[in-house]
Protein backbone atom coordinates (compact mmCIF):
# COMPACT_ATOMS: atom_id res chain seq x y z
CA UNK A 1 0.00 0.00 0.00
CA UNK A 2 1.50 3.40 -0.92
CA UNK A 3 2.38 5.58 2.05
CA UNK A 4 -0.09 8.34 1.10
CA UNK A 5 -3.02 5.90 1.16
CA UNK A 6 -1.71 4.35 4.38
CA UNK A 7 -1.60 7.78 6.05
CA UNK A 8 -5.00 8.82 4.68
CA UNK A 9 -6.59 5.66 6.10
CA UNK A 10 -4.89 6.23 9.46
CA UNK A 11 -6.23 9.79 9.59
CA UNK A 12 -9.71 8.52 8.73
CA UNK A 13 -9.98 6.43 11.86
CA UNK A 14 -8.31 8.43 14.60
CA UNK A 15 -8.76 7.17 18.13
CA UNK A 16 -10.31 9.37 20.77
CA UNK A 17 -10.47 12.33 18.43
CA UNK A 18 -13.15 14.81 17.52
CA UNK A 19 -11.91 14.52 13.91
CA UNK A 20 -13.65 11.16 13.57
CA UNK A 21 -17.00 12.75 14.43
CA UNK A 22 -16.39 15.61 11.98
CA UNK A 23 -15.41 13.07 9.29
CA UNK A 24 -18.54 11.01 9.99
CA UNK A 25 -20.76 14.09 9.72
CA UNK A 26 -19.21 15.17 6.44
CA UNK A 27 -19.58 11.66 4.97
CA UNK A 28 -23.22 11.75 6.10
CA UNK A 29 -23.60 15.06 4.23
CA UNK A 30 -22.31 13.48 1.01
CA UNK A 31 -24.59 10.43 1.50
CA UNK A 32 -27.65 12.66 1.87
CA UNK A 33 -26.69 14.93 -1.04
CA UNK A 34 -26.08 12.04 -3.45
CA UNK A 35 -29.17 10.11 -2.32
CA UNK A 36 -31.48 13.12 -2.74
CA UNK A 37 -30.20 13.92 -6.23
CA UNK A 38 -30.62 10.29 -7.36
CA UNK A 39 -34.08 9.91 -5.80
CA UNK A 40 -35.39 13.13 -7.32
CA UNK A 41 -33.96 12.28 -10.74
CA UNK A 42 -35.47 8.78 -10.57
CA UNK A 43 -38.92 10.09 -9.61
CA UNK A 44 -38.79 12.79 -12.30
CA UNK A 45 -37.79 10.15 -14.86
CA UNK A 46 -40.65 7.96 -13.63
CA UNK A 47 -43.10 10.82 -14.10
CA UNK A 48 -41.78 11.43 -17.61
CA UNK A 49 -42.15 7.73 -18.43
CA UNK A 50 -45.67 7.70 -17.06
CA UNK A 51 -46.69 10.70 -19.17
CA UNK A 52 -45.07 9.20 -22.23
CA UNK A 53 -46.79 5.88 -21.68
CA UNK A 54 -50.20 7.47 -21.22
CA UNK A 55 -49.75 9.65 -24.30
CA UNK A 56 -48.58 6.69 -26.35
CA UNK A 57 -51.51 4.56 -25.19
CA UNK A 58 -54.15 7.16 -25.88
CA UNK A 59 -52.84 9.28 -28.71
CA UNK A 60 -51.59 8.27 -32.16
CA UNK A 61 -47.85 7.79 -32.58
CA UNK A 62 -47.82 9.38 -36.03
CA UNK A 63 -50.49 11.72 -37.46
CA UNK A 64 -50.79 12.29 -41.20
CA UNK A 65 -52.81 15.26 -42.41
CA UNK A 66 -53.04 17.32 -45.62
CA UNK A 67 -50.38 20.02 -45.88
CA UNK A 68 -52.77 22.94 -46.42
CA UNK A 69 -55.82 21.82 -44.53
CA UNK A 70 -58.61 20.13 -46.47
CA UNK A 71 -59.43 16.46 -46.26
CA UNK A 72 -57.81 13.17 -47.17
CA UNK A 73 -59.88 11.31 -49.73
CA UNK A 74 -59.58 7.58 -50.43
CA UNK A 75 -58.45 7.15 -46.85
CA UNK A 76 -59.12 3.41 -46.86
CA UNK A 77 -56.59 2.77 -49.62
CA UNK A 78 -54.02 5.04 -47.92
CA UNK A 79 -54.55 3.26 -44.60
CA UNK A 80 -53.93 -0.10 -46.25
CA UNK A 81 -50.73 1.17 -47.89
CA UNK A 82 -49.53 2.66 -44.61
CA UNK A 83 -50.16 -0.61 -42.80
CA UNK A 84 -47.72 -2.24 -45.21
CA UNK A 85 -44.86 -0.07 -43.83
CA UNK A 86 -42.67 -2.29 -41.62
CA UNK A 87 -43.19 -1.43 -37.96
CA UNK A 88 -46.65 0.10 -38.39
CA UNK A 89 -49.19 -1.87 -36.35
CA UNK A 90 -52.36 -0.08 -37.42
CA UNK A 91 -53.59 2.91 -39.40
CA UNK A 92 -56.90 4.49 -38.62
CA UNK A 93 -58.67 7.40 -40.35
CA UNK A 94 -59.70 10.18 -38.01
CA UNK A 95 -61.73 13.35 -37.81
CA UNK A 96 -61.26 15.75 -34.95
CA UNK A 97 -63.21 18.84 -34.12
CA UNK A 98 -64.24 20.89 -31.15
CA UNK A 99 -67.92 20.41 -30.27
CA UNK A 100 -70.40 21.45 -27.61
CA UNK A 101 -71.90 18.58 -25.66
CA UNK A 102 -75.06 19.04 -23.65
CA UNK A 103 -76.65 16.80 -21.08
CA UNK A 104 -78.99 17.72 -18.23
CA UNK A 105 -78.62 21.39 -19.29
CA UNK A 106 -74.91 21.24 -18.68
CA UNK A 107 -72.68 22.18 -21.62
CA UNK A 108 -69.05 21.21 -22.07
CA UNK A 109 -66.74 21.73 -25.09
CA UNK A 110 -64.62 18.60 -25.58
CA UNK A 111 -62.76 17.46 -28.68
CA UNK A 112 -64.78 15.03 -30.76
CA UNK A 113 -62.74 12.25 -32.35
CA UNK A 114 -64.30 10.30 -35.17
CA UNK A 115 -62.57 7.03 -35.83
CA UNK A 116 -63.00 3.69 -37.56
CA UNK A 117 -64.77 1.41 -35.04
CA UNK A 118 -62.85 -1.66 -36.23
CA UNK A 119 -59.44 -0.02 -36.25
CA UNK A 120 -59.88 2.30 -33.27
CA UNK A 121 -59.18 -0.44 -30.74
CA UNK A 122 -55.79 -1.06 -32.34
CA UNK A 123 -54.89 2.64 -32.41
CA UNK A 124 -56.23 3.75 -29.03
CA UNK A 125 -55.54 1.63 -26.01
CA UNK A 126 -58.83 2.04 -24.18
CA UNK A 127 -58.95 -1.16 -22.24
CA UNK A 128 -59.55 0.57 -18.91
CA UNK A 129 -63.31 1.01 -19.11
CA UNK A 130 -64.97 2.46 -16.01
CA UNK A 131 -68.36 1.26 -17.27
CA UNK A 132 -69.96 -0.02 -20.47
CA UNK A 133 -67.84 -1.10 -23.42
CA UNK A 134 -65.89 0.49 -26.24
CA UNK A 135 -68.62 0.44 -28.88
CA UNK A 136 -68.95 3.31 -31.34
CA UNK A 137 -71.16 1.64 -33.90
CA UNK A 138 -74.15 3.72 -35.06
CA UNK A 139 -75.17 6.82 -33.12
CA UNK A 140 -73.14 6.09 -30.07
CA UNK A 141 -70.21 7.61 -28.27
CA UNK A 142 -67.59 6.70 -25.73
CA UNK A 143 -66.29 9.36 -23.35
CA UNK A 144 -63.88 9.82 -20.49
CA UNK A 145 -64.79 9.34 -16.87
CA UNK A 146 -64.18 12.99 -15.91
CA UNK A 147 -66.23 14.32 -18.82
CA UNK A 148 -69.06 11.92 -17.91
CA UNK A 149 -69.06 13.10 -14.35
CA UNK A 150 -68.98 16.76 -15.46
CA UNK A 151 -72.04 16.16 -17.63
CA UNK A 152 -73.64 13.85 -15.09
CA UNK A 153 -74.14 11.18 -17.74
CA UNK A 154 -74.02 7.41 -17.33
CA UNK A 155 -73.90 4.50 -19.80
CA UNK A 156 -77.13 4.16 -21.78
CA UNK A 157 -78.05 7.84 -21.53
CA UNK A 158 -78.04 10.29 -24.43
CA UNK A 159 -75.96 13.40 -25.01
CA UNK A 160 -76.58 16.22 -27.49
CA UNK A 161 -73.64 17.23 -29.67
CA UNK A 162 -73.53 20.66 -31.39
CA UNK A 163 -70.92 21.17 -34.06
CA UNK A 164 -69.66 24.67 -34.95
CA UNK A 165 -69.49 23.53 -38.59
CA UNK A 166 -73.24 23.19 -38.67
CA UNK A 167 -73.93 26.36 -36.74
CA UNK A 168 -72.60 28.46 -39.62
CA UNK A 169 -75.28 27.21 -42.04
CA UNK A 170 -77.65 30.17 -42.50
CA UNK A 171 -81.45 30.17 -42.50
CA UNK A 172 -81.66 26.57 -41.35
CA UNK A 173 -82.96 25.21 -38.13
CA UNK A 174 -80.21 23.07 -36.78
CA UNK A 175 -80.80 20.04 -34.67
CA UNK A 176 -77.98 18.68 -32.60
CA UNK A 177 -76.83 15.09 -33.01
CA UNK A 178 -78.16 12.79 -30.31
CA UNK A 179 -75.67 10.09 -29.34
CA UNK A 180 -76.03 7.30 -26.82
CA UNK A 181 -73.19 6.78 -24.35
CA UNK A 182 -72.11 3.15 -24.67
CA UNK A 183 -68.92 3.28 -22.63
CA UNK A 184 -67.00 5.43 -20.18
CA UNK A 185 -63.23 4.99 -20.13
CA UNK A 186 -60.75 5.78 -17.38
CA UNK A 187 -57.23 6.31 -18.76
CA UNK A 188 -55.99 7.65 -15.41
CA UNK A 189 -55.02 10.91 -17.08
CA UNK A 190 -57.33 13.84 -16.40
CA UNK A 191 -56.64 15.62 -19.72
CA UNK A 192 -57.71 12.53 -21.65
CA UNK A 193 -60.59 11.65 -19.35
CA UNK A 194 -62.12 15.13 -19.43
CA UNK A 195 -61.43 16.34 -22.94
CA UNK A 196 -62.53 13.74 -25.51
CA UNK A 197 -65.66 12.21 -27.01
CA UNK A 198 -64.99 9.25 -29.31
CA UNK A 199 -67.48 8.33 -31.99
CA UNK A 200 -67.62 6.76 -35.45
CA UNK A 201 -66.37 8.43 -38.63
CA UNK A 202 -69.88 8.54 -40.04
CA UNK A 203 -71.22 10.50 -37.04
CA UNK A 204 -68.21 12.81 -37.11
CA UNK A 205 -68.72 13.48 -40.83
CA UNK A 206 -72.36 14.35 -40.21
CA UNK A 207 -71.35 16.80 -37.54
CA UNK A 208 -68.76 18.43 -39.77
CA UNK A 209 -70.94 18.52 -42.85
CA UNK A 210 -68.58 16.26 -44.77
CA UNK A 211 -69.73 13.75 -47.33
CA UNK A 212 -66.47 11.83 -47.55
CA UNK A 213 -62.84 11.94 -46.55
CA UNK A 214 -61.10 12.42 -43.20
CA UNK A 215 -58.89 15.11 -41.66
CA UNK A 216 -56.08 12.82 -40.64
CA UNK A 217 -54.79 9.28 -40.48
CA UNK A 218 -53.47 7.99 -37.17
CA UNK A 219 -50.74 5.37 -36.95
CA UNK A 220 -49.73 3.11 -34.12
CA UNK A 221 -46.24 1.61 -34.29
CA UNK A 222 -44.61 -1.29 -32.48
CA UNK A 223 -41.96 0.52 -30.43
CA UNK A 224 -42.41 4.32 -30.53
CA UNK A 225 -39.71 4.87 -27.86
CA UNK A 226 -37.00 3.13 -29.87
CA UNK A 227 -35.45 6.23 -31.38
CA UNK A 228 -33.77 4.63 -34.40
CA UNK A 229 -36.58 2.26 -35.31
CA UNK A 230 -39.16 5.05 -34.94
CA UNK A 231 -37.08 7.42 -37.08
CA UNK A 232 -36.92 4.78 -39.80
CA UNK A 233 -40.72 4.30 -39.73
CA UNK A 234 -41.31 8.08 -39.90
CA UNK A 235 -38.95 8.29 -42.89
CA UNK A 236 -40.77 5.45 -44.66
CA UNK A 237 -44.16 7.06 -43.97
CA UNK A 238 -42.86 10.42 -45.29
CA UNK A 239 -41.64 8.69 -48.47
CA UNK A 240 -45.07 7.14 -48.94
CA UNK A 241 -47.00 10.36 -48.29
CA UNK A 242 -44.82 13.18 -49.67
CA UNK A 243 -47.74 15.60 -50.08
CA UNK A 244 -48.95 15.25 -46.49
CA UNK A 245 -47.77 16.66 -43.19
CA UNK A 246 -46.39 13.86 -41.01
CA UNK A 247 -46.13 14.69 -37.30
CA UNK A 248 -44.79 12.44 -34.58
CA UNK A 249 -46.04 12.10 -30.99
CA UNK A 250 -42.98 13.98 -29.72
CA UNK A 251 -43.70 16.91 -32.05
CA UNK A 252 -47.38 17.09 -31.11
CA UNK A 253 -46.70 17.05 -27.35
CA UNK A 254 -43.29 18.72 -27.51
CA UNK A 255 -44.33 21.44 -25.05
CA UNK A 256 -45.15 18.90 -22.37
CA UNK A 257 -41.94 16.93 -22.87
CA UNK A 258 -39.84 20.10 -22.97
CA UNK A 259 -41.48 21.32 -19.76
CA UNK A 260 -40.77 17.98 -18.08
CA UNK A 261 -37.14 18.04 -19.23
CA UNK A 262 -36.63 21.64 -18.08
CA UNK A 263 -38.26 20.87 -14.72
CA UNK A 264 -36.03 17.83 -14.25
CA UNK A 265 -32.86 19.70 -15.18
CA UNK A 266 -33.69 22.66 -12.94
CA UNK A 267 -34.42 20.34 -10.06
CA UNK A 268 -31.12 18.49 -10.57
CA UNK A 269 -29.12 21.74 -10.76
CA UNK A 270 -30.73 23.04 -7.57
CA UNK A 271 -30.23 19.74 -5.78
CA UNK A 272 -26.61 19.55 -6.89
CA UNK A 273 -26.07 22.58 -4.64
CA UNK A 274 -26.93 20.36 -1.66
CA UNK A 275 -24.12 18.06 -2.74
CA UNK A 276 -21.77 21.02 -3.19
CA UNK A 277 -22.59 22.11 0.39
CA UNK A 278 -21.82 18.56 1.53
CA UNK A 279 -18.49 18.72 -0.28
CA UNK A 280 -17.71 21.97 1.51
CA UNK A 281 -18.13 19.96 4.73
CA UNK A 282 -15.47 17.54 3.46
CA UNK A 283 -13.21 20.51 2.65
CA UNK A 284 -13.84 21.91 6.11
CA UNK A 285 -12.88 18.57 7.71
CA UNK A 286 -9.66 18.59 5.73
CA UNK A 287 -8.83 22.16 6.72
CA UNK A 288 -9.38 21.27 10.40
CA UNK A 289 -7.23 18.16 9.92
CA UNK A 290 -4.35 20.02 8.27
CA UNK A 291 -4.33 22.63 11.04
CA UNK A 292 -4.50 19.91 13.68
CA UNK A 293 -1.70 17.94 12.01
CA UNK A 294 0.72 20.82 11.38
CA UNK A 295 3.41 19.32 13.66
CA UNK A 296 3.02 15.89 12.09
CA UNK A 297 3.29 17.28 8.57
CA UNK A 298 6.49 19.06 9.66
CA UNK A 299 7.83 15.80 11.07
CA UNK A 300 6.93 13.82 7.94
CA UNK A 301 8.78 16.32 5.78
CA UNK A 302 11.76 16.25 8.16
CA UNK A 303 11.81 12.45 7.90
CA UNK A 304 12.12 12.71 4.13
CA UNK A 305 8.57 12.52 2.80
CA UNK A 306 8.05 14.67 -0.27
CA UNK A 307 5.46 17.44 -0.52
CA UNK A 308 3.74 15.34 -3.18
CA UNK A 309 3.35 12.36 -0.82
CA UNK A 310 1.87 14.63 1.88
CA UNK A 311 -0.49 16.30 -0.59
CA UNK A 312 -1.70 12.99 -2.03
CA UNK A 313 -2.38 11.71 1.51
CA UNK A 314 -4.68 14.65 2.26
CA UNK A 315 -6.37 14.56 -1.17
CA UNK A 316 -6.99 10.83 -0.64
CA UNK A 317 -8.43 11.58 2.79
CA UNK A 318 -11.04 13.83 1.17
CA UNK A 319 -11.49 11.46 -1.74
CA UNK A 320 -12.18 8.42 0.43
CA UNK A 321 -14.84 10.39 2.32
CA UNK A 322 -16.48 11.33 -0.97
CA UNK A 323 -16.27 7.87 -2.50
CA UNK A 324 -17.67 6.25 0.65
CA UNK A 325 -20.36 8.96 0.81
CA UNK A 326 -21.21 8.52 -2.88
CA UNK A 327 -21.39 4.71 -2.73
CA UNK A 328 -23.49 4.76 0.45
CA UNK A 329 -25.59 7.59 -1.03
CA UNK A 330 -26.36 5.47 -4.12
CA UNK A 331 -27.22 2.53 -1.85
CA UNK A 332 -29.43 4.74 0.34
CA UNK A 333 -31.17 6.12 -2.76
CA UNK A 334 -32.04 2.60 -3.99
CA UNK A 335 -33.18 1.59 -0.51
CA UNK A 336 -35.45 4.62 -0.26
CA UNK A 337 -36.77 4.18 -3.81
CA UNK A 338 -37.59 0.52 -3.15
CA UNK A 339 -39.57 1.56 -0.08
CA UNK A 340 -40.84 4.88 -1.46
CA UNK A 341 -44.48 3.88 -1.27
CA UNK A 342 -44.14 2.84 2.37
CA UNK A 343 -42.34 6.07 3.27
CA UNK A 344 -44.93 8.23 1.53
CA UNK A 345 -47.64 6.19 3.30
CA UNK A 346 -45.97 6.90 6.66
CA UNK A 347 -45.81 10.61 5.84
CA UNK A 348 -49.47 10.56 4.83
CA UNK A 349 -50.36 9.00 8.20
CA UNK A 350 -48.80 11.94 10.01
CA UNK A 351 -50.67 14.37 7.78
CA UNK A 352 -48.02 15.17 5.14
CA UNK A 353 -49.45 14.41 1.69
CA UNK A 354 -46.46 14.26 -0.66
CA UNK A 355 -48.35 13.05 -3.73
CA UNK A 356 -52.08 13.79 -3.30
CA UNK A 357 -53.95 11.09 -5.24
CA UNK A 358 -56.65 13.45 -6.50
CA UNK A 359 -54.02 15.69 -8.12
CA UNK A 360 -51.67 13.13 -9.58
CA UNK A 361 -54.18 10.32 -9.91
CA UNK A 362 -51.45 7.80 -9.13
CA UNK A 363 -51.81 4.66 -7.13
CA UNK A 364 -48.00 4.42 -6.96
CA UNK A 365 -45.25 6.97 -7.30
CA UNK A 366 -43.43 6.16 -10.52
CA UNK A 367 -39.63 6.04 -10.54
CA UNK A 368 -36.91 4.74 -12.78
CA UNK A 369 -33.16 4.99 -12.24
CA UNK A 370 -31.16 5.71 -15.37
CA UNK A 371 -27.68 4.16 -14.79
CA UNK A 372 -26.03 6.90 -16.89
CA UNK A 373 -27.49 9.58 -14.62
CA UNK A 374 -26.15 7.82 -11.50
CA UNK A 375 -22.70 7.70 -13.13
CA UNK A 376 -22.93 11.45 -13.92
CA UNK A 377 -23.87 12.25 -10.30
CA UNK A 378 -21.08 10.03 -8.91
CA UNK A 379 -18.44 11.41 -11.28
CA UNK A 380 -19.48 15.04 -10.63
CA UNK A 381 -19.38 14.54 -6.85
CA UNK A 382 -15.96 12.89 -7.02
CA UNK A 383 -14.66 15.64 -9.34
CA UNK A 384 -15.99 18.41 -7.07
CA UNK A 385 -14.47 16.60 -4.14
CA UNK A 386 -11.05 16.35 -5.75
CA UNK A 387 -11.05 20.12 -6.27
CA UNK A 388 -12.29 20.71 -2.73
CA UNK A 389 -9.63 18.40 -1.24
CA UNK A 390 -6.86 19.86 -3.33
CA UNK A 391 -6.80 23.26 -1.64
CA UNK A 392 -6.26 22.16 1.99
CA UNK A 393 -3.96 19.36 0.81
CA UNK A 394 -1.81 21.83 -1.13
CA UNK A 395 -1.69 24.09 1.92
CA UNK A 396 -0.48 21.18 4.06
CA UNK A 397 2.08 20.07 1.48
CA UNK A 398 3.74 23.45 1.15
CA UNK A 399 4.07 23.81 4.92
CA UNK A 400 7.62 24.66 5.99
CA UNK A 401 8.83 21.78 8.20
CA UNK A 402 10.93 24.10 10.36
CA UNK A 403 7.97 26.38 11.15
CA UNK A 404 5.88 23.31 11.92
CA UNK A 405 8.56 21.75 14.16
CA UNK A 406 9.18 25.03 16.01
CA UNK A 407 5.61 24.92 17.33
CA UNK A 408 6.69 22.20 19.77
Amino acid sequence: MPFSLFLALKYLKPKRSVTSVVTLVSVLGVILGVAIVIIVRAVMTGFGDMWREKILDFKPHITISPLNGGVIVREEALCKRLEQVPGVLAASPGLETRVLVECRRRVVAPLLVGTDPLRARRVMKLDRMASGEFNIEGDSAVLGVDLASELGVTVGEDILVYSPMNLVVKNEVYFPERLTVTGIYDSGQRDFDAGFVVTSIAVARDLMGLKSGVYSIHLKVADPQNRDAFKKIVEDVRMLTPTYAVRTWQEIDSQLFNALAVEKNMMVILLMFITVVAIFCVMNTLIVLTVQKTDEVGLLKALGFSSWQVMVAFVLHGWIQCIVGTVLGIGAAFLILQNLQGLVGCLARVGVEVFPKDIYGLAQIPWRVVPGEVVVVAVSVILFCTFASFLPAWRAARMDPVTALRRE
Partner: protein
Amino acid sequence: MLEATNLHKTYTLPHKRVEVLRGASLRVGEGERVAVVGRSGAGKSTLLHVLGGLDRPETGEVSVAGQSLYTSSARVRTAVRAAHIGFVFQSYHLLPEMDVTENVMLPAMTGVLKIPRSEMRRRALELIKQVGLADRATHMPLELSGGEQQRVALARALVNEPALILADEPTGNLDRSTGGQIMELLFGLSRTRGLALVMVTHSPETAALCDRVVELTEGLLVAKA
Protein backbone atom coordinates in the same frame (compact mmCIF):
# COMPACT_ATOMS: atom_id res chain seq x y z
CA MET B 1 30.51 12.44 7.50
CA LEU B 2 29.17 15.96 7.94
CA GLU B 3 30.82 19.11 6.76
CA ALA B 4 29.33 22.56 7.24
CA THR B 5 31.25 25.64 6.22
CA ASN B 6 30.67 29.33 6.79
CA LEU B 7 26.95 29.13 7.58
CA HIS B 8 25.03 32.38 7.76
CA LYS B 9 21.40 32.52 8.79
CA THR B 10 19.34 35.60 9.62
CA TYR B 11 15.77 35.94 10.84
CA THR B 12 13.81 39.09 10.22
CA LEU B 13 11.45 39.86 13.05
CA PRO B 14 9.23 42.97 13.15
CA HIS B 15 11.62 45.95 13.46
CA LYS B 16 14.56 43.62 14.10
CA ARG B 17 17.05 41.44 12.22
CA VAL B 18 18.56 38.58 14.18
CA GLU B 19 21.78 37.06 12.83
CA VAL B 20 21.62 33.55 14.27
CA LEU B 21 24.58 32.07 12.39
CA ARG B 22 27.48 34.30 11.37
CA GLY B 23 29.89 31.98 9.64
CA ALA B 24 29.53 28.83 11.74
CA SER B 25 31.52 25.82 10.52
CA LEU B 26 31.52 22.26 11.75
CA ARG B 27 33.15 19.02 10.65
CA VAL B 28 32.02 15.69 12.10
CA GLY B 29 33.86 12.49 11.26
CA GLU B 30 32.36 9.02 10.97
CA GLY B 31 31.24 7.70 14.33
CA GLU B 32 32.19 10.96 16.03
CA ARG B 33 29.90 12.37 18.71
CA VAL B 34 29.67 16.13 19.01
CA ALA B 35 27.69 18.08 21.60
CA VAL B 36 26.47 21.57 20.73
CA VAL B 37 25.94 23.78 23.74
CA GLY B 38 25.00 27.43 24.13
CA ARG B 39 22.60 29.70 25.95
CA SER B 40 18.88 29.61 25.17
CA GLY B 41 18.07 31.43 21.94
CA ALA B 42 21.65 31.15 20.65
CA GLY B 43 20.36 29.33 17.56
CA LYS B 44 21.23 25.71 18.38
CA SER B 45 17.99 24.32 16.95
CA THR B 46 18.38 26.50 13.86
CA LEU B 47 21.90 25.12 13.39
CA LEU B 48 20.55 21.57 13.64
CA HIS B 49 17.82 22.32 11.08
CA VAL B 50 20.41 23.82 8.72
CA LEU B 51 22.70 20.79 9.18
CA GLY B 52 19.74 18.47 8.49
CA GLY B 53 18.81 20.15 5.21
CA LEU B 54 15.55 21.52 6.61
CA ASP B 55 16.41 25.23 6.63
CA ARG B 56 18.44 26.83 3.86
CA PRO B 57 21.21 29.17 5.06
CA GLU B 58 21.82 32.52 3.27
CA THR B 59 25.40 31.51 2.59
CA GLY B 60 27.55 28.49 3.32
CA GLU B 61 27.25 24.86 2.43
CA VAL B 62 26.46 21.59 4.17
CA SER B 63 27.42 18.19 2.84
CA VAL B 64 26.36 14.87 4.31
CA ALA B 65 27.97 11.59 3.26
CA GLY B 66 29.70 13.48 0.45
CA GLN B 67 26.48 14.94 -0.95
CA SER B 68 25.97 18.67 -0.97
CA LEU B 69 22.57 19.58 0.47
CA TYR B 70 21.88 23.13 -0.63
CA THR B 71 23.32 23.08 -4.13
CA SER B 72 20.99 20.16 -4.94
CA SER B 73 17.29 20.26 -5.71
CA ALA B 74 14.70 19.96 -2.93
CA ARG B 75 13.98 16.42 -4.14
CA VAL B 76 17.60 15.31 -3.79
CA ARG B 77 17.87 17.05 -0.42
CA THR B 78 14.75 15.19 0.78
CA ALA B 79 16.20 11.89 -0.42
CA VAL B 80 19.60 12.54 1.29
CA ARG B 81 17.78 13.42 4.50
CA ALA B 82 15.72 10.23 4.37
CA ALA B 83 18.70 7.99 3.58
CA HIS B 84 21.53 9.41 5.69
CA ILE B 85 20.11 11.47 8.55
CA GLY B 86 18.11 10.39 11.59
CA PHE B 87 16.33 13.04 13.66
CA VAL B 88 15.52 12.89 17.37
CA PHE B 89 13.44 15.75 18.76
CA GLN B 90 12.80 16.97 22.27
CA SER B 91 9.03 16.39 21.85
CA TYR B 92 9.30 12.89 20.33
CA HIS B 93 6.83 13.76 17.53
CA LEU B 94 5.24 10.34 17.29
CA LEU B 95 2.14 10.04 15.10
CA PRO B 96 -0.75 9.28 17.49
CA GLU B 97 -2.76 7.38 14.84
CA MET B 98 0.00 4.78 14.35
CA ASP B 99 1.20 2.13 16.76
CA VAL B 100 4.82 1.81 17.94
CA THR B 101 5.89 -0.46 15.05
CA GLU B 102 4.31 1.77 12.40
CA ASN B 103 5.92 4.87 13.93
CA VAL B 104 9.34 3.19 13.79
CA MET B 105 8.72 2.06 10.20
CA LEU B 106 7.79 5.60 9.11
CA PRO B 107 11.16 6.79 7.68
CA ALA B 108 11.47 3.53 5.71
CA MET B 109 8.09 4.28 4.13
CA THR B 110 9.58 7.28 2.31
CA GLY B 111 10.66 4.68 -0.21
CA VAL B 112 14.27 5.76 -0.23
CA LEU B 113 15.55 2.28 0.63
CA LYS B 114 13.25 0.45 -1.77
CA ILE B 115 12.70 -2.45 0.64
CA PRO B 116 9.45 -4.40 0.98
CA ARG B 117 6.99 -3.68 3.80
CA SER B 118 7.88 -7.00 5.47
CA GLU B 119 11.57 -6.00 5.67
CA MET B 120 10.59 -2.59 7.10
CA ARG B 121 8.56 -4.37 9.78
CA ARG B 122 11.41 -6.78 10.53
CA ARG B 123 13.85 -3.91 10.96
CA ALA B 124 11.39 -1.94 13.08
CA LEU B 125 10.71 -4.89 15.41
CA GLU B 126 14.45 -5.53 15.78
CA LEU B 127 15.03 -1.89 16.76
CA ILE B 128 12.04 -1.88 19.12
CA LYS B 129 13.63 -4.89 20.81
CA GLN B 130 16.98 -3.10 21.02
CA VAL B 131 15.40 -0.07 22.75
CA GLY B 132 13.71 -2.44 25.20
CA LEU B 133 10.10 -2.11 24.08
CA ALA B 134 9.55 -5.55 22.53
CA ASP B 135 6.32 -6.02 24.51
CA ARG B 136 4.95 -2.59 23.49
CA ALA B 137 5.26 -3.00 19.70
CA THR B 138 1.51 -2.82 19.10
CA HIS B 139 0.83 -0.08 21.64
CA MET B 140 -0.25 3.39 20.63
CA PRO B 141 2.02 6.33 21.54
CA LEU B 142 -0.50 7.73 24.03
CA GLU B 143 -0.24 4.48 26.02
CA LEU B 144 3.51 5.03 26.57
CA SER B 145 5.42 7.14 29.11
CA GLY B 146 7.62 10.02 27.97
CA GLY B 147 10.78 7.91 28.26
CA GLU B 148 9.21 5.09 26.26
CA GLN B 149 8.06 7.51 23.58
CA GLN B 150 11.59 8.86 23.24
CA ARG B 151 12.90 5.27 22.89
CA VAL B 152 10.43 4.79 20.03
CA ALA B 153 11.69 8.05 18.49
CA LEU B 154 15.27 6.72 18.79
CA ALA B 155 14.32 3.48 17.04
CA ARG B 156 12.56 5.52 14.34
CA ALA B 157 15.71 7.61 13.76
CA LEU B 158 17.70 4.41 13.15
CA VAL B 159 15.37 2.41 10.90
CA ASN B 160 16.89 3.64 7.63
CA GLU B 161 20.37 2.88 9.05
CA PRO B 162 21.59 6.47 8.70
CA ALA B 163 25.19 7.45 9.23
CA LEU B 164 24.32 10.63 11.14
CA ILE B 165 21.92 11.35 14.00
CA LEU B 166 20.86 14.92 14.71
CA ALA B 167 19.38 15.13 18.20
CA ASP B 168 17.74 18.27 19.57
CA GLU B 169 17.77 18.08 23.39
CA PRO B 170 16.49 14.49 23.41
CA THR B 171 16.19 14.41 27.20
CA GLY B 172 14.78 17.92 27.59
CA ASN B 173 11.30 16.67 28.49
CA LEU B 174 12.42 13.78 30.71
CA ASP B 175 13.36 13.43 34.37
CA ARG B 176 17.02 12.95 35.27
CA SER B 177 16.90 9.18 35.66
CA THR B 178 14.87 8.50 32.49
CA GLY B 179 17.02 11.00 30.59
CA GLY B 180 20.11 9.12 31.74
CA GLN B 181 18.69 5.83 30.42
CA ILE B 182 17.89 7.41 27.05
CA MET B 183 21.42 8.81 26.79
CA GLU B 184 22.90 5.44 27.63
CA LEU B 185 20.80 3.89 24.92
CA LEU B 186 21.63 6.59 22.34
CA PHE B 187 25.39 6.39 23.00
CA GLY B 188 25.28 2.60 23.06
CA LEU B 189 23.54 2.42 19.69
CA SER B 190 25.81 5.09 18.25
CA ARG B 191 28.86 3.12 19.40
CA THR B 192 27.70 -0.28 18.14
CA ARG B 193 26.53 1.09 14.79
CA GLY B 194 29.36 3.56 14.29
CA LEU B 195 26.97 6.48 13.99
CA ALA B 196 28.05 10.10 13.92
CA LEU B 197 26.02 12.16 16.40
CA VAL B 198 25.40 15.87 16.65
CA MET B 199 23.45 16.62 19.79
CA VAL B 200 22.14 19.91 21.10
CA THR B 201 22.10 19.81 24.90
CA HIS B 202 21.90 22.04 27.92
CA SER B 203 23.29 19.40 30.23
CA PRO B 204 27.05 19.56 30.94
CA GLU B 205 26.97 15.87 32.03
CA THR B 206 25.48 14.79 28.70
CA ALA B 207 27.91 17.00 26.80
CA ALA B 208 30.80 15.41 28.72
CA LEU B 209 29.84 12.00 27.31
CA CYS B 210 30.56 13.21 23.75
CA ASP B 211 33.92 13.08 21.96
CA ARG B 212 33.85 16.82 21.43
CA VAL B 213 31.88 19.83 22.67
CA VAL B 214 31.32 22.98 20.62
CA GLU B 215 29.59 26.11 21.83
CA LEU B 216 27.38 28.26 19.65
CA THR B 217 28.13 31.79 20.65
CA GLU B 218 27.62 35.01 18.69
CA GLY B 219 26.65 32.88 15.68
CA LEU B 220 29.93 30.99 15.60
CA LEU B 221 30.85 27.48 16.70
CA VAL B 222 33.74 27.51 19.15
CA ALA B 223 35.44 24.38 20.45
CA LYS B 224 35.06 23.98 24.21
CA ALA B 225 37.70 22.40 26.33
